[in-house]
């Protein structure tokens, strides 16, 4: 199965599992940096991305997600196309004005079932192995 390998990104001597993925909004593809986060149920993005792209993110399904400090943030969920390496697929993607972290988060929905993800921090790389035919 195809495997896509990414380097960890160094931040003042610490390593972060940040990868660049593609996001399709309306008819345009946008490269975005995302922190791979198994603790996030969905891929969560700063609302400013949608605002800048002219995408009406508030038309999505509104839900609330609990974050690390125990509070809940409003998130608007959409089914959008993502791209990792050459592979494109639909995933639930949420936009929030109150993400509370600097990073966009690449969460579990679809991503963690489509790929076997291996965090190899010692080797400073993480790999996404396609889990097979997803139709």
């Amino acid at each position, binding site marked *: 199965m195809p495997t896509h390998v990414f380097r960890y*990104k160094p*931040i*003042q001597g610490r390593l972060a599992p940040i990868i660049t993925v593609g996001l399709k909004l309306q008819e345009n*593809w946008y490269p*975005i940096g995302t922190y791979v986060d198994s603790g996030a149920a969905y891929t969560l993005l700063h609302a400013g991305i949608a605002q800048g792209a002219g995408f009406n993110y508030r038309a999505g399904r509104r839900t609330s997600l609990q974050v690390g400090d125990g509070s809940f943030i409003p998130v608007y969920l959409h089914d959008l196309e993502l*791209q990792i390496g050459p592979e494109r697929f639909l995933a639930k993607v949420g936009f929030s004005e109150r993400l509370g972290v600097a990073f966009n988060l690449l969460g579990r929905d679809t991503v963690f079932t489509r790929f076997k993800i291996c965090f190899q921090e010692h080797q400073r790389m993480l790999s996404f192995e396609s889990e097979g035919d997803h139709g």
Partner: protein
Amino acid sequence: MEAFVLREYDEWLADHLEELVRRYPSKVVAIHEGQVVYTGDSEAEVYQWVAKTGLTPMPLVFRIPRVEDLDSVL
């Protein structure tokens, strides 16, 4: 989008993120053809600039973290 474009942006980020964290903490930057071409305070502001320029391929717009942001991931 072309996979090689994503790959090039990802490699560039791996090579330069340390420098970006020093120079542009908490800013949102647009990266294109191996350099920072714009900085702003929000993704919306930067994408609006990108739309005006019509740059291709689409620049990578990235919010530069601070090291303490690593401790606040969900």
